[in-house]
């Protein structure tokens, strides 16, 4: 039997196991929305297309499935671009469906036409313009396959209105044939053996873990690996939750706002075992002084990541799901030598403990004014172990990375690569849609919150009980910090002069709002906020000019940190 393009699209989604999509209707997707009424797929109506993409992105980040968002042509589609770029930078598997004007009108500056293939080319893993309904099923199959395999990423499918209305026999292909795309690489055994020899020869090894480990779901293998060789583990922002931050081998985050001990460990290390990380400039600081004494092993599924920023002594192209278990097996075969390494690295671990004692993560507590770090510590103490935390971008995001000890994988959702303010609230929404029963918290600043605050309406409408923590400093705090440190305290356009009543804002949307202004109120309010049903805004008036420390100034080496006094 023949089906229309829009029916085929929804069938493909269903066959790909998609249960929930996020989106916003309009003229060129009206057929899809009509057929959606007869489809088992749940649709969440966000209040902005950017938010719909962030929500679908976070849905993917917490479930590991491909996130799906739908937008209409023109302004709807261009609104998705920040969301797509955010997902692209963090390698999140997504399929974005954009409506397009009918094929005969493409290129005519038709009403609500935008060249989405051109616009999204640099921020998608791949994109498709569907010109014939007969190609739609194959393209959808490929889109999902490309999104989720290899180094994952967003794929956009631009679907003209006439293609949605045309009919074809529906036949979903079982396999994908893409001769230019062979993503499942198995690591070269000789390289693997070399890696093992290097590990067995190391005396100051450090395991440096990136977002690839989160995406590959290898937390268990990583734990085994680290415990076997007893090496300290440092994680990037994208990998905080892939290794328990409470583990004795954890040294927390490295880089610009990393811990003293992580940055010292990397600087002194003689072997850096890099797993699914990409040596971002926020991580390395000045390249010339990054891990100067270390040999570098770099495991990554994406060959373009290897040797892009730093020299690499042993490249290992492969999937972590394949490489880590094989490394662990290999080490098992060398049990005696492993024991020797563990014994020979006692001094190294002692050194790390010394660094931890010398400069632990700390802040100065005050009697009355609330310290933002304190709120985060308390939150960790009081929320569930598997609570999902999303953040916006700014100081609050860094404090979350520093002071919220993540334990379970896929519980930390943050925009790392692009650093998109306005990500957190819709991301929390998407995470809550995936796990209605779990605690989901958005940690936000007053600035970022206002970039997508319209999503309060979506939360209330769909009864998604996200708890929003606003660390309100009345500043665009992170930029203000840079102005304080590097621009003589000239606070150009970073003071949010109009104070917002976030409690009233919550109430206007039918959510609950509460506010704390003193340290002593923090604990009670977090307890109350977490226990209150439905979406809640917990606003904390925090110390206005608190800084995120340690900090490696831009362009400096990791060992040139400005430390908390």
């Amino acid at each position, binding site marked *: 039997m023949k089906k229309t393009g829009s029916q085929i699209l929804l069938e493909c989604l269903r066959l790909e196991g998609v249960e929930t999509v996020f989106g916003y209707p309009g003229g060129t997707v009206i057929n899809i929305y009509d057929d959606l009424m007869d489809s088992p797929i749940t649709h969440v109506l966000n209040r902005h297309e950017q938010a719909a993409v962030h929500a679908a992105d976070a849905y993917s980040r917490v479930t590991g499935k491909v996130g799906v968002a739908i937008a209409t042509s023109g302004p709807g589609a261009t609104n998705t671009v920040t969301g797509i770029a955010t997902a692209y930078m963090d390698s999140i598997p997504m399929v974005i469906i954009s409506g397009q004007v009918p094929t005969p009108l493409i290129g005519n500056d038709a009403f609500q036409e935008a060249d989405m293939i051109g616009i999204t080319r640099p921020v998608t893993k791949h994109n498709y313009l569907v010109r014939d309904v007969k190609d739609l099923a194959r393209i959808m199959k490929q889109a999902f396959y490309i999104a989720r395999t290899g180094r994952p990423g967003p794929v956009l499918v631009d679907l003209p209105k006439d293609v949605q209305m045309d009919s074809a026999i529906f036949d979903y292909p079982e396999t994908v044939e893409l*001769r230019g795309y062979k993503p499942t690489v198995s690591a070269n055994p000789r390289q693997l053996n070399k890696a093992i020899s290097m590990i067995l020869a190391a005396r100051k090894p450090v395991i440096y873990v990136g977002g690839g480990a989160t995406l590959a779901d290898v937390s268990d293998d990583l734990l085994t690996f680290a415990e076997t060789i007893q090496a300290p583990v440092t994680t990037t922002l994208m990998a905080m939750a892939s290794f328990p931050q409470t583990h004795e081998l954890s040294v927390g985050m490295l880089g610009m706002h990393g811990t003293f001990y992580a940055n010292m460990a990397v600087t002194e290390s003689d072997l850096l075992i890099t797993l699914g990380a990409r040596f971002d400039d926020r991580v390395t600081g000045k390249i010339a002084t990054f891990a100067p004494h270390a040999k570098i092993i770099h495991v990554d599924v994406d*060959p373009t990541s290897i040797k892009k920023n730093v020299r690499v002594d042993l490249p290992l192209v492969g999937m972590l799901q394949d490489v880590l278990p094989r490394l662990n097996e290999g080490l098992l075969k060398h049990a005696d030598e492993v024991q020797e390494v563990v014994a020979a690295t006692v001094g190294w671990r002692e050194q790390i403990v010394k660094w931890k004692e010398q400069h632990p993560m700390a802040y100065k507590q005050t009697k009355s004014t609330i310290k933002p770090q304190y709120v985060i510590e308390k939150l960790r103490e009081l929320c569930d172990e598997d609570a999902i935390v999303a953040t916006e971008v700014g100081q609050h995001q860094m404090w979350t990375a520093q002071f919220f000890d993540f334990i379970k994988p896929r519980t930390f959702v943050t925009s790392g690569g692009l650093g998109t303010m306005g990500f957190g609230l819709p991301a929390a929404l998407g995470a809550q849609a995936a796990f209605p029963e779990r605690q989901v918290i958005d940690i936000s600043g007053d600035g970022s919150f206002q970039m997508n605050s319209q999503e309060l309406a979506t939360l209330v409408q769909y009864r998604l009980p996200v708890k929003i923590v606003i660390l309100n400093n009345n500043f665009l705090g992170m930029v203000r910090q840079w102005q304080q440190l590097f621009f003589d305290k000239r606070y150009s356009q970073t003071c949010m002069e109009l104070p917002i009543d976030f409690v009233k804002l919550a109430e206007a949307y039918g959510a609950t709002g509460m506010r704390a202004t003193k340290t002593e109120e923090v604990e009670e309010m977090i307890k109350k906020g977490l226990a209150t049903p439905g979406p809640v805004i917990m606003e904390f008036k925090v110390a206005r000019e608190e800084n995120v420390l340690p900090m490696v100034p831009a362009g400096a080496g990791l060992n040139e940190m400005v430390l908390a006094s």
Partner: protein
Amino acid sequence: MKHTITVLVENEFGVLPRVSGLFSGRGFNIDSLSVAPTLDPSISRMTIVTTGDQKILEQISKQLNKLIDVIKVIDFTNQNYIEREMLMVKVSAEAESRAEVLRVADIFRAQVVDVTPRSYSLEVTGTPEKLDAFVELLRPLGLKELVRSGPIVIGRGPKAWRSVD
């Protein structure tokens, strides 16, 4: 340093901007690019000439490989290969220079493809260096218009780059 890269791609619309975008996105100039279908009409072969440092070229080559529509990337830079480019040129050929133009054409084995009382159009193939020399000799005689195809290359020896191996 000059690099000549051959890229086998799916013969589909929209592939060219993906490829060229990788270069422009990194501030790299494409000196020349030629593209046409291969023996297998579903595959097109691009020959790209660019200049740049080895490390960045390695990145670009990896990035090209990463494109879904790219089937194979061959960097001929350090290989044994044959390179040819085609050139067509319109030269003024008034009374006194007419013979000289033909003499130069003859030396370079160029064909006369169009003749008018005031001009010749010539066609020649060869290595880019040969074409450069040809152009320099014609320049004083009055070059009116010049068009070059950009080089295409093929490896020496029996090994063939056709599609997926």
